[in-house]
């Protein structure tokens, strides 16, 4: 710990004159800046993870389409978060949304960090919230409508909710604790996916007239697995990077081990649940379980001990499997499990701060299991349910408007042929013998 601090100080001293010439009043913390940028790169790479997970879980005839959506939502999130998003999220300390810093003009980053480094980190988060949705609405949503949705969520919806918690809004004033975004990023993405997939209605042939679900299997499980490994790695930027600095290596390390243990416990718990319920250890559900554990630990990662991180991972993994089952019972067709993983476990992770959190680790109040009573749990519930409520209402309006203006869903014939040929005029696996029959 000492060595790092000394090294940081030396670097600051060495570079101070150079900085002084260009930005007279600002001194940057070199180590913190370096850490935030590395974390931003890792979070950016989660886009690759999401792309692979979703591509593998859809049928071969829709793989190029889902890749295009994953590519373009990050592009539109980058532009949208540059023009409007950052200003709304971090511009001023108003209770509902910020009002300054359009195009990043006339605004400064947080203490010790260059604005552009902080922006890159936050933009990668914004892109994560946006990209969660493509999986839930996969295999039937119009490409143009997806582009419009991507811009709206990343320029306006996500930044408003982010502002409430991280930008000095009304939830920040109430001691609501969502360290890296179980609610702000994952529940927002997960519930947007739920609204979208509900309005789109199930894929053609998913449910029989008697309500029983049919099997529509993904076409490449190794891709899904690689995607989950990439997401797991990216989460080491997502959670530990949310410290926005390296001044306390103990905190960064605690977050790292908690993140890893929750993912592992989530996968094991999901595997065991699926094994008990369906007779076989299902790979797709086990991978969902790892992601569920990661989403669950995202809010409480800094304020719980490693043993509790394991409990949180286990509960998230089990919750995610039951979420998948419930959705099928309700005939809501979520091809990749975006809602069970990000929506349900996002809420659960946020509430877990009020259950397992400890003042000793930096929580605002002790959680229910540490003698703090229901105080923090109540604040967490208020924060997550108000954020989710705003997401559901606003995205319902957005999707309804897009549907009325451009249409949300492709034609039945295009859905049967596949969106690769229908939307993009190309195949993902030209020349390969792949069954495109279902």
């Amino acid at each position, binding site marked *: 710990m000492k060595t790092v601090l000394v090294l940081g100080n030396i670097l600051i001293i060495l570079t101070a004159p150079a900085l002084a010439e260009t930005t007279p009043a600002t001194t940057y913390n070199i180590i913190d800046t370096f850490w935030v940028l590395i974390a931003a790169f890792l979070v950016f790479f989660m886009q690759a993870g999401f792309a692979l997970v979703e591509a593998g879980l859809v049928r071969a005839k829709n793989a190029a389409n889902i890749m295009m959506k994953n590519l373009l939502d990050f592009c539109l999130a980058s532009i949208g978060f540059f023009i409007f998003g950052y200003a709304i999220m971090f511009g001023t300390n108003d209770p509902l949304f910020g009002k300054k810093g359009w195009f990043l003009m006339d605004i400064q980053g947080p203490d010790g960090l260059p604005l552009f480094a902080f922006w890159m980190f936050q933009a990668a988060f914004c892109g994560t919230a946006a990209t969660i949705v493509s999986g839930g609405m996969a295999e039937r949503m119009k490409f143009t409508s997806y582009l419009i949705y991507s811009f709206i969520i990343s320029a306006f919806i996500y930044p408003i909710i982010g502002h409430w918690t991280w930008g000095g809004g009304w939830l920040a004033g109430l001691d609501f604790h969502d360290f890296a975004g179980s609610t702000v990023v994952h529940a927002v993405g997960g519930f947007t996916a739920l609204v979208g997939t509900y309005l789109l209605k199930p894929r053609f*042939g998913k449910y029989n007239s008697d309500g029983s679900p*049919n099997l529509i299997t993904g076409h490449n499980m190794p891709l899904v697995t690689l995607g989950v490994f990439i997401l797991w790695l990216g989460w080491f930027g997502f959670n530990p990077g949310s410290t926005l600095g390296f001044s306390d290596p103990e905190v960064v390390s605690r977050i790292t081990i908690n993140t890893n243990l929750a993912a592992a416990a989530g996968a094991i718990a999901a595997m065991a649940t699926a094994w008990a319920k369906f007779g076989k250890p299902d790979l797709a559900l086990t991978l969902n379980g790892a992601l569920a554990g990661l989403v669950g630990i995202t809010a409480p990662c800094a304020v719980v001990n490693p043993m509790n991180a394991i409990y949180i991972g286990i509960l998230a993994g089990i919750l995610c499997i039951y979420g998948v089952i419930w959705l099928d019972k309700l005939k809501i067709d979520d091809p990749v499990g975006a809602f069970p993983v990000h929506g349900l476990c996002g809420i659960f992770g946020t509430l877990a701060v009020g259950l397992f959190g400890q003042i000793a680790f930096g929580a605002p109040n002790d959680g229910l299991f540490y003698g703090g009573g229901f105080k923090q749990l109540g604040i967490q519930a208020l924060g997550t349910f108000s954020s989710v409520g705003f997401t559901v209402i606003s995205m319902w309006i957005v999707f309804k408007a897009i549907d009325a203006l451009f249409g949300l869903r492709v034609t039945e014939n295009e859905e*049967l*042929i596949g969106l690769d*040929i229908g939307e*993009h*005029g*190309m*195949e993902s696996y*030209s020349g390969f*013998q*792949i*069954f*495109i*029959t*279902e």
Partner: protein
Amino acid sequence: MKLIIAIIQPHHLPAVKKALFDAQVYKITVSNVLGCGEEKGYAETYRGVMHEVELLKKVRLEIAVNEDFVEPTIAAIINGARTNNVGDGKIFVTDLTECIRIRTGERGTRAIG
């Protein structure tokens, strides 16, 4: 004994399978094939280059049946695959001279059933 060969649109396979199942025809071979009939191809673009795809993806079904199952099988395939559009496909029926079940050595109508 007849061999029924049907060429259908790939995305009608689930409906055809269901119709065959309902008609108690459980034995079927399915293959991916390329071909063209009266249906026009579609335009595909790859890295900016456009070309007409003439051979379309189709699914070929092969079903060997005894005489009294010929008409129900044909009806089931039509039921699942007909949209009244060009490209719905064709059904061919040919005589089948012999059929042998490898496991038992049974021959003829017993081997089919």
